């Protein structure tokens, strides 16, 4: 895989200096003290980028919109003063995943230069790709989140990305219409298939993200999703986000990844309609509730899973001429978001008003999972740990 070098020595030096400074600050400031090593119960993290541009006043400020997010908040920690690192959707979401304020190019459809949270976790924990998933609703940009271009990490440590709206959609239904829905595999035939595949000699041309066994598992999952789940039938406004969340919940049950991330975008419908935006928030909260119920209903997941939810940035304070909400007025409603953290290692029912940043999520998640994030410039979320 091609891995271009970082843009320049100056930029690299700047980033490294920032990381060192941030680390020094984290060590010296009791607000950002690290959790006790070895004492953490968290074994899995679900990170939800409740993104598309969502104001706190429309989520935790209006509990009726987000009853499930409020369930998490009631038993977890809310950071209402979390500063957005970037005000463009792609760069802002990527900033959360890298822990670095990202500047993205004009087309905003290329990989970043910093390692992502997936790479940190997979490399240090030596996880297969099935251990880190991203369920995205970002179109072609989604796969860019899988890994960055830094030579020290990169493609071998990338996430399995799936964009449900890209597969479980009307276009793919037309493929199904043309060829018919694939039949579920007879277990005997499936075993024979795997024996046959295993018998084919060494013709592999290079490393793949998933090994043969995992690829076969993912294949089976896609067939099951098409043939046996309700995901394909999710339609209407906000269905892309709903699918991303539904898929994340299914993947959590099937693959039990160490790190699951969901990236949402449909709230951006707000540009044209405030009401449609609220509907997206409500629908996403409903799907978030399904994930929470999945975790709570599974003995293995219940006491070992942490969930973090935050948007990439907020939206303008006032409605635009279309009765919608843009994102560009430099208001606090735009620049600050609410981050909700729930899990066995966190305080319960607390609101921490200390200033923090969306780039703090990456190092916090890494710390939870016991790995380092050396190029991330964020700090640990303050006073999070119990």
């Amino acid at each position, binding site marked *: 895989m091609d891995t271009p070098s970082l843009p320049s020595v100056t930029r690299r030096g700047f980033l490294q200096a920032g990381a060192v400074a941030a680390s020094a600050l984290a060590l010296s400031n009791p607000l950002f003290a690290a959790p006790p090593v070895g004492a953490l119960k968290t074994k899995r993290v679900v990170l939800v980028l409740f993104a598309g541009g969502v104001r706190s006043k429309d989520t935790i400020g209006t509990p009726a919109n987000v009853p499930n997010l409020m369930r998490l908040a009631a038993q977890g920690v809310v950071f209402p003063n979390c500063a957005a690192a970037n005000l463009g959707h792609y760069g802002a979401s990527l900033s959360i995943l890298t822990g670095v304020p990202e500047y993205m190019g*004009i087309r905003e459809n290329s990989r970043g230069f910093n390692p992502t949270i997936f790479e940190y976790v997979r490399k240090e924990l030596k996880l297969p790709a099935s251990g880190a998933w991203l369920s995205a609703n970002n179109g072609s940009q*989604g796969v860019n989140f899988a890994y960055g271009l830094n030579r020290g990490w990169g493609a071998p440590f990338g996430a*399995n990305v799936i964009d449900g709206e890209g597969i479980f959609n009307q276009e*793919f239904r037309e493929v199904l219409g043309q060829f018919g829905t694939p039949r579920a595999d007879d277990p005997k035939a499936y075993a024979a298939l795997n024996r046959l595949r295993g018998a084919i*000699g060494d013709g592999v041309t290079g490393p793949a993200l998933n090994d043969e066994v995992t*690829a076969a598992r*993912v294949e089976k999952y896609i067939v099951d999703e098409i043939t046996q789940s309700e995901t394909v039938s999710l339609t209407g406004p906000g269905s892309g986000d709903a699918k991303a969340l539904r898929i994340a919940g299914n993947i959590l049950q099937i693959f039990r990844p160490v790190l699951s991330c969901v990236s949402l975008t449909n709230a951006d419908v707000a540009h044209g309609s405030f009401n449609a935006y609220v509907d997206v928030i409500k629908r996403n909260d409903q799907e978030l509730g399904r994930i929470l119920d999945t975790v709570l209903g599974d003995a293995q997941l219940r006491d070992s899973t942490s969930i973090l939810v935050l948007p990439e940035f907020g939206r303008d304070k006032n409605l635009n001429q279309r009765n919608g909400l843009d994102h560009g007025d430099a208001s606090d409603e735009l620049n600050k978001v609410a981050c909700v953290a729930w899990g066995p290692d966190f305080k319960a029912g607390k609101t921490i008003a200390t200033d923090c940043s969306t780039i703090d999520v990456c190092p916090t998640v890494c710390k939870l999972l016991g790995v380092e994030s050396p190029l991330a410039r964020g700090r640990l979320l303050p006073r999070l740990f119990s």
Partner: protein
Amino acid sequence: MIDPVSLSIRRFAPGPRDVIAAAALEAPGAELQRSLTLAPLDRRFIRAATVDLAGRTPLPSEWQAAQGKPRGEWIREFSSSFVAAECCYEEELFYFLLIDNFRPSTDAFAAIPQLLAGRKLSIREMLRQIVSSQFFNARNPGNDTFATVVLEQLLGITVQKEPALLEAAKRMYDGYPANVLGKSGSSQADFVRIAAEHPQSEPCFVERRFTAIFGDAPPKKRLAADSERLRNEPLSWPDLVAGWLGSLAYEQRVAQPRPKSDRVFVRSLYADLLGRVPDYQEFRRCRNALLALSDSRPLRSVLIKMMLDSGVADGALGNGATPAEQVADRFLHFLARPPTAAESSAFVREIEGGADARLVLRALLTHSEYQSY
């Protein structure tokens, strides 16, 4: 005035290996004079060259047509064919991301492959038409996006390192007098014309096509020579490509399998299983779904299963009087090689144990070896 020689030119993603050896690129292939057969070595060559020229594996009629022709003659003919021109055009549209809603839909654009194949349209003119189209304009709205994409994609210039050039281009796009790349203009049309006529256009195109075929960057001297030839002989593109595929370097490249892109995979699956090329909508639906995964291999396997389950691909299930002959036939057809003794006995054992022809085919097509060419 900006000296073109001093521009920050972006290289097209060179691969992990060293650049292609210049001597091997200048040397003719060892097998050029020999007539093609359907033996494994020739199968592999025909398959690779067809993928590189047509963006897919050969159709049954193309396998047939290749037999008996001297390799060099077949390369020259295929490089000048309509399918090669069509693939070149489609790859350029994808390169400029003029796909889906931005795909050019006028008769003038539909005619481009035929004009290219008939040597009535040059590569330079094709690129100029693409970049000056309403579709490119819609895909790249606004002065900053438009100027950046033209400079980056048409000329390979790293605009972040040329801020003065970008600002001048944006001014010209906005209708103000400006000097871009040493030429004056005062409109978007002037900017497109100046960029399309710039001598960096040929090396940028030649380098990306060469890299697509060889998986690596061309030697600098060869890049300069081929670019100059394309500039001086604007209709010589098919001859230039034929020279690449007729080289010893290409024979060496064929010996090293490379992964099929999602686009190549979709077209090849239709060609191999259904004996035809997918229409654009079929191609688009499958391509877009595959692009939704960071590792598309599992979904590729699902597509294979769907086609096989549906029965539409039963014509590809194969021939052979005995299980061993069936296995040999299918290995040769889909993997361009005979099975090893161990592979043959394992497959025969499963067939005798009840594995049907579809399952055998599914195993071959979903294996990583079929995902390369």
